[in-house]
């Protein structure tokens, strides 16, 4: 079976982000980029699925500029068989990314596609579901447990305060949540093997972006805190301030 995993290349959550000169983008200088952490669960699940089937091919696809190859290579080092970069040096909104992916998934003829539940750069959490919609695939999001039996799928998804079990069938898109599995490390042998694996590069299918970033701003700096007192006698004053000044209770 052909399994696709869609991966994005995002700033490391631990790096300090500065705004770009245009006020609409981030300054990439000094920013380390990593595989989107949720995509690592998606990659692992794709590899595990292939391994449990005992046959098949896992393909990693990324939409974006040339540098996204770094993330594709990481996926190859983890064990993915080949990569595809759908190249676009310009930023796209979620729908335009989904359109490029849907177009490629259709051409590849894959019926099982894994995504991370969200990309930690823009946090829109929609590309997987949009791609499913464009392709007419079933989709299950925020998945923490996945089982494939023939063409039937039983997936557990995280919902407010619990878990929901969903039954569906191929063709399907699954978006991965933390807890789905333990992503493997890229082994040294895997890293060497990745050097020989192909990354196909082609222009991403044309698609209009409907969402435009107008401005990026830093969150307002936090105001200094106020210490009301240090023992029980301060409680009434604290409650009064929380109610009247902060208006949170």
């Amino acid at each position, binding site marked *: 079976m052909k399994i696709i995993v869609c991966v994005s290349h995002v700033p490391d959550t631990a790096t300090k982000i500065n705004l770009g000169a245009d006020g609409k983008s981030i300054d990439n200088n000094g920013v380390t980029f990593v595989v989107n952490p949720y995509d690592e669960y998606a990659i692992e699940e794709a590899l595990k699925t292939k391994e449990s089937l005992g046959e098949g091919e896992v393909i990693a696809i990324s939409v974006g500029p040339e540098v996204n190859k770094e993330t594709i*290579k990481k996926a190859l*080092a983890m064990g993915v068989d080949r990569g595809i970069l759908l190249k676009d040096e310009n930023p796209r909104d979620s729908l335009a990314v989904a359109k490029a992916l849907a177009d490629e998934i259709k051409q590849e003829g894959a019926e099982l596609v894994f995504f991370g539940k969200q990309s930690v750069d823009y946090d829109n959490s929609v590309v997987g579901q949009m791609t499913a919609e464009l392709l007419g695939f079933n989709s299950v999001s925020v998945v923490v447990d996945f089982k494939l039996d023939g063409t039937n799928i039983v997936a557990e998804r995280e919902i407010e305060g619990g878990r929901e079990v969903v039954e569906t069938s191929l063709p399907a898109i699954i978006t991965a949540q933390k807890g789905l599995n333990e992503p493997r*490390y890229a082994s040294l042998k895997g890293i060497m093997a990745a050097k020989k694996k192909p990354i196909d590069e082609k222009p991403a299918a044309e698609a209009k972006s409907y969402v435009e970033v107008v401005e990026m701003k830093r969150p307002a700096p936090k105001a200094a805190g106020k210490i009301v007192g240090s023992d029980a006698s301060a409680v009434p004053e604290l409650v009064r301030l929380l109610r009247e000044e902060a208006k949170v209770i």
Partner: protein
Amino acid sequence: MSPFKGVDYFNIEALLSEEEKMVRDSVRNFVDDQILPIIEKNYQNGTFPAELVQKLAELGVFGITLPEKYGCANMNNVAYGLAMQELERGDSGVRSFASVQSSLVMYPIFEFGSEEQKDFWLPKLAAGEKIGCFGLTEPDFGSNPGGMVTKAKKVADGYLLNGAKMWITNGTIADIAVVWAKLEGKVRGFLVEKGTKGFSAPEMKGKHSLRASITSELILQDVVIPEENILPKTDGLKSALMCLNQARYGIAWGVVGSMMAVYDSALNYAQSRVQFSKPIAAYQMTQEKLVFILNEITKAQLLNFHLAKLKDNNEIKHYHISLAKRNNCEKALEAARIAREILGANGILDEYPIMRHSANLESVKTYEGTHEMHTLIIGEHITGFAGYD
């Protein structure tokens, strides 16, 4: 705590290939997830975390530079060095395990073994199915291994070994021991399998250093090993020293990992610990200490990087490795002691990695040739006079 980001003051990152960076990051993440959460407990209990062996094998850190056909990664010496550096940021004991398995067991089998020995042992050692140890040092012969008294004698069904080894990393848990012994007066290497009659490997207790690593005696009492267990291409003490060169190279890189760990810990602590009116990082004497450590890390990194290039180009000499091992171990130990000072009393607690690294580095500075012996090796090379006999 946020994940470790490395220490790279001179943008050495720019000198690394994409694969080398991936190796570093993969091993770094492994250390964060798999080693750091369990190491203090093992250290305190004086136990080796055996559950790591399989995981380290899957990661691929045994025999990094050896060919694919033995299940190895066939990588260059930068990758090998970076892997050792990252592992030792976790703990010198874990790095020691990997060094012994790779440089002192797989390497001699690869370099001096028969085709049958290579085909049989290397894949199992790479996969962590078998563990090895290296027996050179004896109770009475440490810096002077050429004086060894362990003897081999040709007998009808193979070789008869008699003698004792001491300070042998992994000895008690090893399936296979590379034992150095004199056959007709010449030092040769032999493979002694666990369970062979007359062979035992009791653990040495009471260490205050490398507590998460097993150190053992090897006792050989009328041990008969089959004919095919001699390493056929070993030819005198120089064969054993060739193995040590591999391991020393890994140590020169490894201790930079220890330095990074203590630097990271001391810098974070200094920035948040307030005494008098300011964080202690704001005082000049603390800054001098931090700068010293950073400076030594940076010098050692550049030294190692060039050493790797010499090794990859087959231009490396044993005295190059001696210089790097000597310098880096000494500076790492100094760095650990200085980092401990920055943390004051907290520096001695197991909540911080510093005291563990500091104690470990006492062994690392001693094994694989003491500081003094490396001084004598370099001294002999530059003056033409041997300072030892």
